[in-house]
Structure formats: structure tokens, C-alpha cells
């Protein structure tokens, strides 16, 4: 648990879908790492590539974008978001940031298991990325 608490994971949630989903996890009193920080937005499409890069620069270890996926109520927003995330991956590689530290996923209001799974997987990815950087196996 100690390693997990030493990491900061940013969860970008949508007000209509994954933010209530995170509340559902809370209402079920399910446990996850306290190193996770949830922010809510109308839609993650609002963030430019530079926002993500700045997060990493500031010390955020991993970012999970919990979008509404193809159920997004805003016309064309999910397509734009996925295209932007693809461009962020390119910038991450160029800046030596492991792309596994960014994940675009879909979480709804009742996706408790998926919510926890994404956090667990991101924790593993961050540990692996740290180990790779230090040249040792995770």
C-alpha cells in the first residue's frame, strides 16, 4: 500500500456519468488508494494537450480520463477527445513519459468494478514505469 500512497492519480470524470459513478463506489464503501484525486468536468474534451503535459510536469503520476465514451451526450465530443488523447500520447513519448500513465476509458454511474479496476491497473502501470526508468523489474 505504501508505494500506492506515494503516487498521485488524477481521475477526470464527467459530471453526468463517471462522477456519480465515483460516488456509487463511495456509497458502497469500497476501498481504493487515497492517492487518487477526482475532478469533475462537463466533458473532458475541454482539455487541450498542454493540460495533460502540465499535469505530469507538476508531479501527477497517472491520469485516467473517465469519459462517457460513445454514450457522450455532446455531438462529436468523444471523437475529438480520443483524437486529442492520441496526440497527447505522441507528446508523452517525445517527452520521455511512459504512455501507460494516461488512460482513456469509459465509466458510467454504476461501473463500480470497472472504476476500481482502472485505478488498480494505473497503479501497476505507474510502478512499472518507475521500475523501467530505474532499470529494474517492478
Amino acid at each position, binding site marked *: 500500500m505504501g508505494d500506492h500512497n506515494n503516487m498521485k492519480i488524477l481521475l477526470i470524470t464527467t459530471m453526468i456519468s463517471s462522477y456519480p459513478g465515483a460516488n456509487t463506489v*463511495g456509497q458502497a464503501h469500497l476501498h481504493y488508494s487515497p492517492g487518487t484525486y477526482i475532478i469533475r468536468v462537463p466533458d473532458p474534451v475541454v482539455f487541450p494537450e498542454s493540460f495533460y503535459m502540465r499535469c505530469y510536469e507538476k508531479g501527477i503520476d497517472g491520469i485516467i480520463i473517465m469519459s462517457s465514451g460513445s454514450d*457522450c451526450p455532446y455531438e462529436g465530443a468523444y471523437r475529438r477527445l480520443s483524437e486529442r488523447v492520441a496526440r497527447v500520447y505522441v507528446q508523452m513519448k517525445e517527452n520521455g513519459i511512459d504512455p501507460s500513465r494516461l488512460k482513456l476509458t469509459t465509466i458510467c454511474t454504476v461501473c463500480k468494478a470497472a472504476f476500481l479496476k482502472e485505478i488498480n491497473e494505473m497503479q501497476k502501470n505507474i510502478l512499472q514505469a518507475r521500475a523501467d526508468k530505474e532499470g529494474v523489474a517492478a
Partner: protein
Amino acid sequence: MEEEKNTQSEENESEEIRVGVYVCHCGGNISDVVDTKAVVEALKKNPNVKIAKDFVFMCSDPGQKLIIDDIIENNINRIVVSACSPTLHETTFRKALTRAGLNPYLYEHVNIREQDSWVHKGENEAATAKAIRLTAAGVEKIARQDPLEPIVVNAEGHVVVIGGGVAGMRAALALIKRGLGVTLIEKGDRLGGRALELDRVYPTEEKASDIVSQLENAVRAEKIDVRLNCEIELIEGFVGNFDVQIRGKDSKIDKVRAGAIVLATGFDHYQPYEGEFGYGKSPIVVTLPEFNKLIADMPQSDKFTYKGKDIKNLAFIHCVGSRQMEGVHQPQADGRVNDYCSRVCCTATLHTINKTLDKFPNLNIFDLYKDIRTYGHGHEDYYEKASKRGVTFFRYTDDSIPEYAPSSNGSGATLTMKDVLTWNEEVSIPADMIVLATGMVPRDISNLVGMLKLPTGTDRFLQEVHPKLRPVELANNGIMIAGTCQGPMDITESCAAAGASAAKVSILLSKKTIEMDPYVARVDEAKCDGCKLCLAECEYKGALFMAESYAHVNPALCVGCGACVAVCPPRAINIAGWTLDQFDGMIDAISMEELEPATVPA
């Protein structure tokens, strides 16, 4: 990487930021895990925070009074409450700010219960550190917040309902009974829609024609403005003020002004392609709607005769055109398969089977299904009844879809499949006639979808904002959906959806003006260099446009998605209340180390 300067806007630049922070114990729900006093002490170090307090129940009257008193007596001009989820009490505290004379949008609600204390039990120190960072992030966000005002537009007390089926008529009646004017537009030459095709309907066994007549009589009695043989030519405007152009049979255009629109455009039946289970090649293969029409007026008899031939063995096949799988089924015109469940066809099929046996008790009926999904109250009874009446059920999988083979003399057919119910035994079922339980597909309303930029789901039906939280609203303000334009549903469900849509519209148009949340795009004209990059991102016609060399937003048309924000290099365009500078401030707070609990006095 360049650092953007995080400053409040010019609007509040001259004002001293005086944030009050209030941390709720929630009667122990939070304070049993989070050290609320440590959060208060940590936040007191923030230069923007003038007052920080903790209290047992912030949502209680004494809790709200703490805030109101501090606003009035200590000139606090921004409020952060760290407590439960904002979905529970954000409105409560905004109202408290209003009572204290402060703009209600100068408020930030931080969730340290559902997303902290309840999920980090036993990790009190880490949960407290998280609460400090989250609260600090709330302070950073609200420090960059300008006062906002709700968007107010005039509201026309009239509604256009598009589609004169059961859902459209029910919506129209509910609306007119709430005092709103209604224009009901139907492209056919009479009201009733798909219900006109039906005989008796489950679960009441009423005649569909009686239901339609009752509704139509009520519509006429209420003197609803009904337009038959009409189609939508153009819709312009925005919530409260839609201009609807209606084209009549004579091509004459009439205009109606409406405050809101209800879409009740209905569905189409799935049409099997030629050769699908023999459909179109053999006259003995028909769809369920065709079969229902065929037997509707047939009298009870010992014999069922179709096209001059005695039918002894009748087979039904479920899920034709529904729950399709890529690589297994032929794709639709857009290249996609119908992978959704059409929901109503299982009950509709079993209802028809029982009705058929009522008329022709000597028939052998075979029912070939993938799953039986009789989801509604009392629907399972049709399955039970059919089982007891000797219907033989076979269950197939996508690996073994029934194979149709016409008999050599062309008068019948054999269906071959592996039956799951008999441990995958291969069975050959003789059929004198085959009924395909076809599902619902979205009606082609591409003119409306394109005109209004309506969201559609992967199933191509219109897509609500949220299936549970906002089930009859589209993201487009002022446009509601009723019935099967949203997805497969039966008449009962369509009527419920119509009632819900009418209720939503009634609330929206209950006053002469509509107040909307101000969370839409806003342009800082001083920063906008007129590059027009934002225009290409906006999907909503008229929401964003250029004038006087900079971008302008029509707040009534903007849905606040933020697609335009991400492409603006100088950050001239932002969603009010959710600016990129605010998010940067939040990230700074989440990232910082100096507010660790260890640094907080005991």
C-alpha cells in the same frame, strides 16, 4: 513547457479574494476518518483563505448560519464547503449564499465523503492529506471564479410535438392539460402511428384501434392544433424560442413559434434482407408484424390455411435483426450490425403465439429463441401459458443460428440448429410457415438529426443525456424525446416516456422566462485573436460565430461541452465556471506538498 499565468479574470481582479472554508464532520461520516481540524488548520495557511471552520453538520441550519454570518460580518466573498457529494447539497449552500446577498456561483463544493472518508477507512492520515489537497483545490478554483448569472431567455408557452403516434398524442394531451399550447405534427394522413398496425396489445388485451381512437378523440376535444400530412422543413432558434417551419401536403410552409420541442418520431420495423431465413424468396416466411396483420381478422378454426395450404407446423424465430454479431450477421447500410436487444419482441412473439393458439388450437408451434427476455410485469405469463399449451421451445446460440432449407416441393421448409436445451443435439424442425420476430430499428429522421445536431447512440436511436438521471432530455436545450425514437419500448413504456417529457417541458415553460445554468462558453474579446479555430470544433449551429473580428457565443444554443475551449491558443474562450485557469489552479493544489498533515499543528 510554458507556464500559463493563473490569474483571476479582469472582472474580479480589483476585488480582494476572501475565501471562507467550512469542513463538515457529517456526524462522524467524515470526521471518523478525516482529521477535520487538521484540514482547517492547513487551509488557514492559504493566503486567500480568511476564515476556516469545521462543524458537525454544515447542511444544518446552524451550519448554514455560520456561512451566512461570515459573509455578512467578515466580508467573505467566496465559499468552499468540504462535505458530502455536491449532488446532495450544492444547491443547499448556493441558496445560503443568495440569502446572504452573495452571488450563488461564488461557491465550490468539495467531496470528502463519498470520494474520501468512505473509501479510505483505516488510512486516516492519507485520507486527511487528500482532504487538504482537495479542499485547497476548491479554494484555487473559487479564487479564480467570477460571479455568474443564470442565462435568462424568454419562453414561448407553446410546444411542437413531432410525431402523432401514441407517444406524441399522450405528450400533447399532458402538455395542453398543463396550460401550454400544442401543435402536433404528423406526416401521415391520420393519427395513431405504428399502433394502427396492431390488433390487441399486451398486457391489457385492449384493441389498439380503441386506444388510438380514445387518444385521438381526446386530442380533438382539447382542440390541439393537429397538422396531418405535414413535415418539418426547418427548425431554427433555441430553447424558449424555436421557429418551426412546417411543410404541408400542398408544399405550403407555415411557421410556428415554440418554447420547446418533443420528438415522438417513432421507429421502423427491421426489414429482413432477401434470403434471410428464406424471407423474400419463399412466401411461407413472414415477419411478426406481417403475421399479426394476417391473423387479425381470421375467425377461430380447426384449420389454419395460408395461401391455399393447410399449415400444421408453425415456427417462430426470435432476434431477427436484433442482437446481431459482427462477422456473423450481415451489416446494415451504415456498415454496423444491430447489436442491441429490441426488448419488446420476446413478449410480442409469445403474445402472438398464444393468440394464434386461441384461434387455431390444433397448430404445432415451435419457438426458436436465443434468450427469452420477457422483462415487463406479467410478461412472463405469456411464456408460462405457451409452455403449458404445448409450444415446443428450442434454444440456439450465435454459433448455431437456425439454418433454413426449403423443402424440395417448395411448400415448406426445415430449420436445422443445435439445441442448447438438449445439450446441443442437432435438431431439424419441419415448418409449413415461418414467422420472423423482427425488432425495432430507428426511423430515418436524418433531416432532424442534421438540422438540430441531435445526438444518436451507437444503436442509431436518439440518445438521452443520461438513462437514469435525465432520461427524456437531449443535450440540446429544450428538446425532449418520447417513445421509440429513443429505443425499443412497448406502448406502456412509450406513454410513460411521453408523460415524463411533458412534465419536463411543463417545468421548463412554467414561467415566461427560462433560467439556465451559466455553464456555457464565454469569450474574452480582449484575448480573442479571431483565428476561428474554435468555430470548426462547434457542432451546434448558431452557438458560436464570428462578429467584429472575434468569436461570439449564443448562450442559449451553447451546450457547454467545451470542445471549442481546447483549441484556443490564447485561452480566450472558456466554459464559465470551468475555466482552464481554474483547472490549472486545482492541479497545482493537488500536486503541492507543503500542506501535508505532518506540517499541520496538532
